[in-house]
């Protein structure tokens, strides 16, 4: 069904954002995140951006101290997901201005709002940054 989860993890392995599109129990999440983080963070720049793990394929990308990890099923187009990560980062950039780990950490709700506009039930809803950010800007204006 496409995207199963999106994780943002810093290079110490601390989860900064976790959004699942299929239900996993807390224990399953903990185990899964641990395994994935161990696998992906150990990789270097010369290695490809895809890691096969259990039933998932993890497409990941590193931005400074932060790793964006997207779990997809075997039917997704890996490069499209890889660029979707970048689109997410660009969108955050537009909103926060040169986004960093702390922005995401302390504005967890905004990161969630953005994701909510971009992905729904594991499918991509919107790829226009203007449209993605519209509701957030509306809210910022209101408050």
């Amino acid at each position, binding site marked *: 069904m496409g995207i199963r989860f999106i994780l943002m993890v810093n290079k110490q392995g601390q989860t900064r954002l976790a959004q699942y599109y299929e239900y996993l129990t807390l224990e399953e999440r903990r185990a899964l995140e641990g395994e994935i983080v161990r696998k992906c963070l150990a990789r270097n720049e010369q*290695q490809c951006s895809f890691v096969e793990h259990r039933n998932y394929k993890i497409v990941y990308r590193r931005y400074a101290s932060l790793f964006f990890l997207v779990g997809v099923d075997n039917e997704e187009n890996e490069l499209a997901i890889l660029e979707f990560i970048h689109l997410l980062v660009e969108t955050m950039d537009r909103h926060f201005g040169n986004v960093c780990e702390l922005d995401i950490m302390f504005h967890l709700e905004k990161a969630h709002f953005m994701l909510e506009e971009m992905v729904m039930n594991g499918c*991509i809803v919107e790829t226009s940054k203007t449209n993605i950010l519209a509701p957030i800007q509306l809210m910022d204006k209101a408050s």
Partner: protein
Amino acid sequence: MALSGMRGLSVFISDVRNCRNKEQERLRVDKELGNIRTRFKNEKGLTPYEKKKYVWKMLYIYMLGYDVDFGHMEAVSLISAPKYPEKQVGYIVTSCLLNENHDFLRLAINAVRNDIIGRNETFQCLALTLVGNIGGREFAESLAPDVQKLLLSSSCRPLVRKKAALCLLRLFRKNSDVVNVDGWSDRMAQLLDERDLGVLTSSMSLFVALVANNHEAYWSCLPKCVKIMERLARNQDVPQEYTYYGIPSPWLQVKTMRALQYFPTIEDPSIRRALFEVLQRILMGTDVVKNVNKNNASHAVLFEALALVMHLDSEKEMMSQCVALLGKFIAVREPNIRYLGLENMTRMLMVTDVHEIIKRHQAQIITSLKDPDISIRRRSLDLLYGMCDVSNAKDIVEELLQYLATADFAMREELALKAAILAEKFAPDLSWYVDVILQLIDKAGDFVSDDIWFRVVQFVTNNEDLQPYAALKAREYLDKPAIHETMVKVSAYLLGEYSHLLARRPGCSPKEIFAIIHEKLPTVSTPTIPILLSTYAKILMHSQPPDPELQNQIWAVYSKYESCIDAEIQQRAVEYFALSKKGAALMDILAEMPKFPERQSSLIKKAEDTDADTAELSAIKLRAQQQTSNALVATDQRPTNGAPQVSQLGMVMIPSTSDAEHNAVDQGLTQANGVSVNDAPPTADMLGDLLSPLAIEGPPAVSTQLDHNGVHGHEGTNGADDALALAPVENQESTVQPIGDIAERFQALCLKDSGVLYEDPYVQIGIKAEWRGHQGRFVLFLGNKNTAPLDSVHAVILSPSHLKLELSLVPEVIPPRAQVQCPLEVVNLRPSRDVAVLDFSYKFGSSLVNNKLRLPAVLNKFLQPIQVSAEEFFSQWRSLAGPPLKLQEVVRGVRPMSLGEMANLLNSLRLMVCPGLDPNASNLVASTTFYSESTRAMLCLVRIETDPADRTQLRMTVASGDPALTFELKEFIKEHLVIIPTTAKPPAPAPQAAPTPPIASSDPGALLAGLL
């Protein structure tokens, strides 16, 4: 540091961040949880702002991996808050914390529905997103119509509609029975005309789900998808916001091409041409550019285009381009492209026959096997495994063996297994096979399962030429200083059986063999000792004339183990000791093991069991399907009782050949029944191997893999397990239900030459037929609707005696969303109404789906309508005077239909109605030619006399030059005239006393003649 709007939340987050270790973090979190709990308890003083803040804290804590088992109510209650900020938090946190089965969610249904049908579109969006993410059955039941309305509403803005599309997708996927999509093809087509790319992106996801479920209903949408591709490829009407690094929404392009892959083919030549033009442009026009994002995005589109070409290009117009591109990709440095190149090459192997071209890249692929990146190594291993055949097996297996020594732990078992399977499947000679497996055990003994060495034993036992060689090899390995225990097992076994063949070689006398094996005994574990004891007994038996010294040594070992605490060892020691005193009798009892019944590998079963990482399994599965193991079937099904449910076989009319199968099923089940699976230690069966000749003569029934229960081979002899492939029949009440009525589909296909024969959620079998005289040709279109490959596909034709049927090879794997075409040649030998049956099975997950489908190679397919003049008709009619060439029958229980309908029916059965020949307007006269090898072309004449007063009865007369044909044709037409032709039995022949139809007063032939 930017502070969030919620100060308390920011403070908490930075507190947690400042914790120096996990313990501190836990303490801080516990404190906060306590705080939130207290606040929630006296709810009086909680403002919406506070509530919002605490709910976010809960989400943060949950994300950190701590259980938050309270406060769900508060999160849900925010959904009904009047203001947007609170409501939004309520929606988002609820969808993060809860799942569809959560009770609290039910409380929100009303609030959610109010938001969906309300006027506030931001509220609508929130509500749709929640339902789209976690909506369950109750949501589907109460909201589906509203969501559909929003999606199609012209007054709704795109921001609402795109969410409605994905919300509907969720509801449909979760509860396809509640969400009615019948007749959705028009709406879908309309949605695909959408200009807004956001709505289009979402709608395309919805479309993929619908078309995956049933592509037949959505043919009308296919041209729309091609239009979208054209629009994007030409960058027409694509707003800047949807252009990503100059590429018009790569995600929508990818999704659209994905959708197109659900259609088996594109028949309309102009649409096909338009699409291929776009694909060609993508294939040719994608260059490597500097900007990495642009490069990735354009290659995302390119790889999807490749997949689509592989799927559609049955004409192979563009296939060579694809192979060339992939060949280029697997050689580039950029790891992502190389990874995808390897992956897609493997996919391509499954789709088309490109083995030879891909083999040219073998060296390059082998280089990737040594890549520092495990992801790439895995892809390379999969590809090597998939492309291996007899010609390159030696090279590839040797590469795998070499790599095994240095491979990471995570891959060794898989490597060992794959090497073993390939060696077995493609061994150019058996001694090489033995070499490979022994090397495998030597290099990676820990990763070589028992199945692998059992298999060597089987091979060696069954091939006399191989025995001295294998024994010699085993003997050589024993000289190595430290050998793996598996090596001890296999060499002990082989030397026990065959060391006497080496007797003249130096170091191979019974005494020396015993000494070198016995040297290992102190180092082995308990399960191996019984094998050694058996070996000693065999050595003793082979030392002729008896060597008293050796005998004493071995007896000493036996007496030592006579009181062993392990029952298996003790029993063997006692029994062998007693047997060895019997002298000549020992010779008979411990004689060489007879050949094993031929069976297929159980390694594949093993391959499927290493299911931890399904991703890496793809290729194993691929192979596995090409060689379904009987053992696999037996162990998987675990029949609980042995009663063969042959009734399943009787479901449709089965030609006479099926008797053998009935028996086979019997045997298969009896065999499987006695067998408990896999749990008992292998020792028992080794004992069984050795002792089975005590009980019975003939081949040992003990298979090394199967009979782990210590049946001791008393049951299931005579190769019964060869029949196991048929065992799955008893598993037919599997959960996979066919879509549509199989009988109806068959009926429809009897009257037309193309359509769907069978469909279930995973498979669709389409059929297309051409007929020429007594010959015909079907093409079966086996389509995998699934997103995973379809395994163990088997198609067997059970043909009745009057038909000669030849089915071309059906691949055992159908790749995801692919369709394979299998021609089936038909020759009609003589007239008969028997029906050929396609026995089709495949494996989905662990369940085997089996269906027996009647093939519409029915009598009327061999008819050629022919127009005859009155003159010809009557002269024939007269010359075919009476039974058996001309038969007449009064048919009752006829499906009431008008004369026109009946004429149409006859015409569709290829009986040409000749109007005007019979002056009685209530009668129909028809003529046709029947073709079969025995009858050649033969004219058939039919006359039907109806009773306008009673449409349920009629009198039918059929005439032809062949008695069998006349009878069969009469019965055949009758079957089609009476109500529900297949299931209802044709009514019993009219009893003599039945009221005579008005027109039956005289012989119709005479009547006709008179009318002339």
